[in-house]
């Protein structure tokens, strides 16, 4: 498999297919970053699309091709924060936006209302609990479960150590287990 550095160099040299491979490699991680920030599945998809395209336009400015992943996730984070700011400017609070939007949190494009209705209640509850985790834990859960990645991949994208990823995942899973078992009692 070609390395990120190789693909970035090819893409910077004008090879469209190389950037397409990078898009396929990173779309899930970029989407996870956006989803963690804005907590709405549909909005996250639109922001992630924008981040991936903005990454392409700015590719010539990337100095270290090996840092493509963290660089792109940084763009995704900025795009999401800009969106949140713009919402705040419109005096719509994030809490108000998320309240009653559990369906939006779990929704995904292409899913019919019937499929939505058939979705297991337990899964809805679990995803709703993920949505309410503190951001560092929510982010690591999303990053890990959106994609087939290792701790090192997540660590590189978030700019933390693999040990931190392990610690956050441990804590996040424990919180989820506790909350879900609390609901069952």
């Amino acid at each position: 498999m070609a390395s990120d550095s190789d693909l970035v160099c090819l893409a910077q040299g004008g090879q469209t297919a190389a950037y397409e491979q990078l898009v396929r490699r990173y779309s899930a991680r970029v989407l996870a970053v956006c989803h963690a920030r804005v907590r709405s599945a549909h909005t996250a998809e639109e922001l992630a699309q924008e981040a991936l395209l903005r990454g392409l336009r700015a590719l010539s400015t990337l100095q270290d091709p090996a840092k493509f992943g963290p660089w792109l996730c940084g763009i995704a984070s900025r795009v999401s924060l800009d969106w949140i700011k713009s919402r705040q400017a419109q005096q719509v609070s994030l809490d108000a936006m998320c309240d009653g939007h559990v369906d939006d949190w779990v929704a995904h494009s292409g899913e019919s209302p019937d499929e939505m209705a058939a979705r297991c209640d337990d899964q809805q509850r679990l995803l709703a609990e993920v949505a309410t985790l503190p951001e560092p834990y929510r982010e690591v859960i999303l990053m890990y479960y959106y994609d087939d990645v290792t701790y090192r991949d997540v660590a590189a994208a978030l700019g933390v150590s693999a040990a931190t990823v392990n610690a956050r995942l441990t804590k996040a899973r424990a919180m989820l287990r506790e909350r879900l078992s609390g609901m069952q009692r």
Partner: protein
Amino acid sequence: MRCDEFQSGFNAWTDRELPEEQAAELEAHLAECAACQAAAEALQAIDGELRTAFAPRRRAAAQLADRVVLAVHEASTATPSPSPPAQQPTGLAWPEALSGVAAGFLLAAAVFRPWRDDAAKANAAVRQPIARMAAASGPVEVQMARHLPVFTCPPAAPIARDSIVRTGPTARCELTMKDGNALRLDCNTEVKLHGSEAVEVHRGRLFAISLPESKRLKIQSGGGTITPQGAARFAVDCQRPAVRLTVVDGMACVQTSNRSRQVGPGKQVRIVEGRVEDDPEARDALLETAWVTGVIALRGADHPELVERVNRLLAKVGAAKLSLLYEEELRRLGDDGVPPLLAYLAATRDTPQVQQRATAARIVADVAEARRIAELIALLTDANADVRFHAARGLERLTGRNQGLDAKTWQSGPWLSCEGPYEKWRTWWAANHDRYPAAKREIPTPNSAPF
């Protein structure tokens, strides 16, 4: 080490992130400690639930990638005729074109107002792909439009209308068309996809699979148009000035400017200068399309079409004058052809197809890789003496051992003299299968008793 110390490693262990040595130590502890085992199971349960819950999100991420790839293609389409490469040192014409004409609507919505309905409309406006690269054995070139640069098509990439798809001297591929039909391209082949159903073959060999419920394919080549009648599989070999059509299954109609002709299964015709004529060099359809087997194998050794093809080739062995040619085709598949051959041997264990079974076992013994050792050990109990002989021969080739019994004795000896060596093989495999990570750990159990 105390339980809480072990439990601190559960998370990394669940995610296969724990170093091998520590994982082994932890697993040994789990085998003895019920409390830790329950804690580990609880963690695995939440991991499983999260994976299930996130499955739709993973699909959404894949669809997002498709949309962005299409937007990049759209931007490429909007690129003005490029300067010669020598005058284009930075090579970044296509990213800049992203703010160009074709992508403009999409980007304007995505960049400035991503949360409004406009973005959804923009997404809908992106052109839908008409095909996808399903599998390829090497680099396959795609050109979206005549004035645009050629690029190497990544796996699963969408392909737009009017693209030219080109394989080189070492690559074959399969394209899945939007409506379910499939096209396979041999090496050195070039086609133009006018639409999901209209394809022009410029050169080389194409194999088309037309489904009954899909739109009717139209394949143009050499002045003729080939249209399947319902479900059909057929090959087009474009070696100008002649184009050869071989129908494997179903019916196809060939239309030229002055005549039309129906071609049935197993038949071949040539299209030359607007005429449709019987092919004087007609060959067996299975041999004529032998190259296709290699493409099917790319989709997996258990692909039903591969199994069917191998069975058809085996059926010809011994029954046709050109037996050796059919056997050669089976050998050419190498280890990819072994699973269908093993499946055939298992399915026909109690049937009288002695010669075909011996041929299948001979090929397996010659071409199988070490990951097939478990299946070869199972064949040592086969009722067919030749199958046992070849299984023993294959095992000796792969492992360098015979457990004290040569292949000839496996063929001629009674079960009494083979039982001991067979048990030795089983014991050896139980102790050694870890050295062959791609192999089955368990030796398949035959349905019937040993010979």
